[in-house]
């Protein structure tokens, strides 16, 4: 005997593994066994190969790697005896999956075994093929399987039928070869063949409309008769399940009839009687009977309309729904979802029962019921149903709250009859399950609040109360802090009292408390804290009496370890201390948030008006490039392309809300994130409609009494427009005060990231005889590359022949010239030649482009050469 082969039998190994007390012990035993098996594999041991493979399969089930045994499967399959093949095929199915290359090696053995004289071996091969074959194998072996559909032994025919299903799922084009042999199987008496044959035909219909037509025409009646026979069959012990003969066959026949009846009135008509019989006569006291009824109901719902049958079906579902068995209730809910599209009224009748199911102790049932309730809600029943759901939110399991909250929010948003109801419901949800409310939902709420001026006072008081009751829900805290920041004065002065409210007394200091708690509570996340800081800044102007206290809180946050908070608090503190004259304008109430913009953004689209308006303001006369124009373009242009792509639309929106407040400080700070905030601010400002042109003109007096300006938008706009560079050029004081505002936060003015596709064209070169225009464009993906379109115009009255344009650039640039559109330039500007240049600026953002050019051409055979240098490129190319 081979000294390496493991002496232990399979049974002994399993025993040894089971005897292990710890995982480490088990690993040791498995390691020893694997070592022995590897050794045996290396020795090419024949005698114990099948035993070793069996051991490997057990080890595999325990979760250990067994890839080294894959080839052993192939060897066993290739051997002659049945026992070896049996274990070999089992190993193949267990240890390999269809994606492994090794599998291809077995194709040949499979082919031989499919043609074997021993039918059990044929069966093994069919089984392996049906369970793991890949598309290539399916193609290679389809003819064999097709032949086996007519094999003499029914047990091979049924295996071949299921194997064919795998083949057509992998390679749908092969379907038509199987249609005729599959139809033949439907006439059989053997239940196994019938079941698999019906299944094969159903699958063929899924992949081939030709098959569907064929079976519909030729087989509908046969199938109806078969179903009738099996439904009326006397007691047959071999197939009996709970008093019903072969429920499996019933179900497959019903499923196939459904496929045939769908969309075909004649076929549907043929099967009406038998469906009615199955629906009424089937015993429903056992699971098997219910399974048939369930399938029958689905078929009735799917085939062409027959009023009477549908009433029957809905009644069955009603009975299911009141069943005590959870399984039956689950499937009833499942089916009612499909029934809604057929007969919504009938489903509405069960509303109360369904609502009870939402509160079931079983998570699967709850989930189904919630989906169903969601579909049942309409304008007329939204109020009572929402009330029920919100009441239930209080007592539901933690893990269900997420789903439930999402559905409630969605219902409230979709069907809300009035704003006050919307706000009330959302506040309830926030108080109960604020931690499960998604960011977008909060933003939507804030937009709605902002758009309901007569409810501002009511909302902020309600939020204040809710906050007092529970400050543990993140989203509630956020919304409350935002509203108190915006409408804190209304809270204190009880502005806009509604009849339904009880008056409350809140002092200014109480309102500041809310923001302070929000900053200091441990569980607050960064966004909440940042929002609280902004609220404080706003309150400092609304409540002068608390201004000192607010400054103290801000000062404490100066030491925050989170950069964002530290930066904000330093900036805000600076506003409080050094810029009292602009503070009240800065922190004025947010303009009403535009619902259309928000919903548009939510849907993932940026309002197009923005880019077109920027485009319009950019038409600077050719050649004359104002020094301020380019940076301004940059700032504005960011809006069109640089809306932060990765962030979700909701978060983006949040940026806007924050950004507008923050903008004076952060838009110019060094971090790119802040720059993005600034971008969004601009976006908003633009979408609100302040023409940027106006702000250009107001540049010099930015910091002069901007309080005079009518809207805070305008003042923000004026503040923002000049980039640090241009501001410094225009008015030194203004520039220094911007830097001042940053207060030691890295004085370097930002060079805004540059993606703008629009740059003014320039006249690059002009002599008495020739003019060259440059048009610029940039791909947003790669700001280093500028594509220049050069247009040459002949100013003389002579035709230029052999026209050649050459250019040279310094080392930090790379230049690529495309061929010119022509080498002949017609006289007197009567035609142009264009040529594309591609410049890569490795010092992008630090150095501008420069270029030397040389133009050579011939006038009447005489060479002319012109040279020049181009310095007037727009900045930031």
């Amino acid at each position, binding site marked *: 005997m081979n000294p390496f082969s493991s002496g232990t039998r399979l*049974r002994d190994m399993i025993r040894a593994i089971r005897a292990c007390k710890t995982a480490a012990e088990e690993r040791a035993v498995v390691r020893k066994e694997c070592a022995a098996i590897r050794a045996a594999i290396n020795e090419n041991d024949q005698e114990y190969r099948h035993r070793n493979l069996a051991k490997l399969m057990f080890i595999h089930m325990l979760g250990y790697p067994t890839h080294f045994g894959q080839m052993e499967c192939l060897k066993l399959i290739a051997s002659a005896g*049945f026992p070896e093949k049996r274990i070999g095929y089992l190993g193949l199915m267990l240890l390999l999956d269809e994606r492994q290359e090794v599998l291809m090696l077995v194709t040949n053995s499979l082919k031989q075994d499919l043609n074997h004289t021993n039918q059990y071996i044929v069966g093994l091969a069919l*089984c392996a093929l049906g369970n793991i074959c890949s598309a290539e194998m399916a193609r290679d072996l389809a003819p064999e399987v097709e032949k086996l559909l007519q094999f003499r032994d029914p*047990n091979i025919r049924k295996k071949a039928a*299921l194997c064919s299903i795998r083949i057509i799922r992998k390679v749908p084009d092969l379907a038509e070869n199987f249609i005729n042999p599959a139809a033949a199987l439907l006439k059989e008496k053997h239940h196994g063949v019938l079941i698999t044959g019906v299944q094969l035909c159903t699958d063929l219909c899924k992949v081939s409309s030709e098959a569907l037509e064929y079976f519909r025409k030729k087989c509908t009646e046969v199938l109806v008769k078969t179903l009738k026979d099996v439904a009326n069959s006397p007691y047959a012990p071999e197939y009996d399940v709970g008093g019903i003969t072969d*429920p*499996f066959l019933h179900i497959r026949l019903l499923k196939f009839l459904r496929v045939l009846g769908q969309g075909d009135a004649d076929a549907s008509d043929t099967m009406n009687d038998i469906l009615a019989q199955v629906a009424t006569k089937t015993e429903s006291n056992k699971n098997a009977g219910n*399974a048939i009824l369930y399938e029958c109901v689905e078929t009735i719902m799917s085939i062409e309309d027959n009023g009477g049958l549908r009433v029957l079906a809905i009644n069955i579902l009603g009975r299911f729904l009141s069943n005590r068995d959870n*399984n039956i209730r689950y499937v009833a809910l499942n089916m009612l979802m499909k029934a809604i599209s057929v007969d919504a009224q009938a489903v509405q009748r069960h509303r109360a029962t369904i609502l009870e199911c939402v509160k079931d102790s079983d998570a699967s049932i709850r989930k189904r019921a919630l989906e169903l309730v969601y579909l049942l809600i309409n304008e007329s029943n939204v109020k009572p149903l929402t009330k029920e759901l919100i009441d239930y939110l209080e007592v539901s399991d933690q893990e269900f709250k997420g789903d439930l909250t999402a559905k409630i929010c969605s219902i409230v948003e979709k069907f809300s009859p009035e704003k006050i109801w919307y706000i009330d419901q959302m506040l309830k949800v926030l108080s109960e399950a604020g931690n499960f409310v998604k960011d977008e939902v909060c933003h939507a709420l804030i937009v709605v609040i902002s758009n309901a001026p007569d409810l501002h006072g009511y909302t902020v008081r309600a939020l204040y109360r809710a906050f007092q009751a529970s400050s543990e829900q993140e989203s509630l805290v956020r919304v409350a802090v935002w509203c108190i920041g915006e409408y804190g004065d209304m809270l204190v002065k009880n502005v806009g009292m509604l009849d339904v409210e009880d008056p409350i007394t809140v002092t200014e200091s109480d309102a500041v408390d809310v923001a302070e708690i929000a900053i200091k509570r441990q569980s607050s996340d960064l966004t909440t804290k940042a929002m609280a800081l902004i609220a404080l800044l706003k309150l400092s102007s609304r409540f002068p009496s608390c201004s000192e206290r607010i400054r103290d809180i801000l000062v404490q946050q100066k030491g925050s370890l989170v950069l964002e908070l530290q930066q904000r608090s330093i900036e805000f503190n600076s506003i409080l201390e050094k810029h009292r004259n602009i503070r009240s304008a800065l922190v004025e109430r947010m303009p009403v948030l535009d619902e259309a913009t928000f919903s548009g953004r939510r849907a993932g689209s940026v309002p197009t008006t923005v880019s077109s308006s920027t485009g319009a303001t950019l038409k600077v006369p050719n050649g004359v490039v104002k020094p301020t124009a380019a940076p301004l373009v940059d700032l504005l242009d960011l809006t069109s392309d640089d809306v932060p792509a990765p962030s979700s639309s909701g978060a983006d929106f949040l940026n806007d809300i924050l950004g507008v407040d923050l903008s004076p400080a952060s838009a110019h700070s060094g971090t790119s994130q802040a720059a993005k905030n600034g971008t969004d601010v601009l976006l908003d400002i633009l979408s609100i409609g302040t023409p940027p042109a106006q702000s250009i003109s107001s540049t010099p007096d930015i910091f002069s009494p901007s309080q005079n300006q009518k809207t805070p938008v305008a003042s923000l706009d004026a503040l923002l427009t000049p980039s640090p560079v241009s501001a410094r050029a225009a008015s030194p004081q203004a520039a220094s005060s911007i830097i001042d505002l940053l207060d030691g936060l890295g004085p370097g003015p930002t060079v805004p990231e540059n993606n703008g596709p629009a740059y003014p064209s320039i006249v690059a070169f002009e002599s008495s005889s020739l003019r060259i225009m440059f048009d610029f464009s940039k791909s947003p993906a790669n700001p280093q590359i500028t594509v220049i379109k050069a247009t040459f115009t002949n100013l003389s009255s002579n035709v230029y022949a052999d026209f050649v344009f050459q250019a040279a650039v310094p080392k930090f640039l790379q230049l690529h010239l495309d061929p010119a559109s022509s080498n002949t330039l017609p006289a007197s500007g009567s035609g142009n030649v264009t040529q594309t240049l591609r410049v890569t600026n490795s010092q992008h953002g630090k150095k501008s482009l420069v270029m030397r050019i040389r133009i050579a051409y011939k006038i009447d055979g005489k060479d002319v050469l012109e040279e020049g240098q181009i310095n007037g490129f727009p900045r930031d190319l």
Partner: protein
Amino acid sequence: MIHFVLLISRQGKVRLTKWYSAYPQKERTKVIREISGEVLSRGPKLCNFVEWRGLKVVYRRYASLYFCMCINQDDNELEVLEIIHHYVETLDRYFGSVCELDLIFNFHKAYYILDELLLAGELQESSKKTVARLIAGQDALVETAKEEANSISNIIAQASK
């Protein structure tokens, strides 16, 4: 169609896995972990269906073993419960009141029986009798092969004496 069949003990040990859809080996471990987490944590008397990754797992507990089958959303859950029971009855008939130990020591037999019941994720045979007959036929083939091998080795042994 049935995407996979899992037998898991109450302690979370895997007793049988059969994959009819393509799940790479690594994914299989993850799937098993997820399913056992979902199924084993469910209390008694709840329904036998768990929604999982857009599919449904139908499970049924027999003594210490959970039989799980994963199906499509629109498949008939009640029928799958019957299929599970059908398999258990077939095992019972083969082993004679089957218990978990039978399935541990004769795991390959459990696979052979499953292969006569299901193929390509679809039901193959609704008669327990037929399945029993087919398995018996194959077992007999194995027995004869063994006997032949023994008698040959006996002859060789005697000849070499």
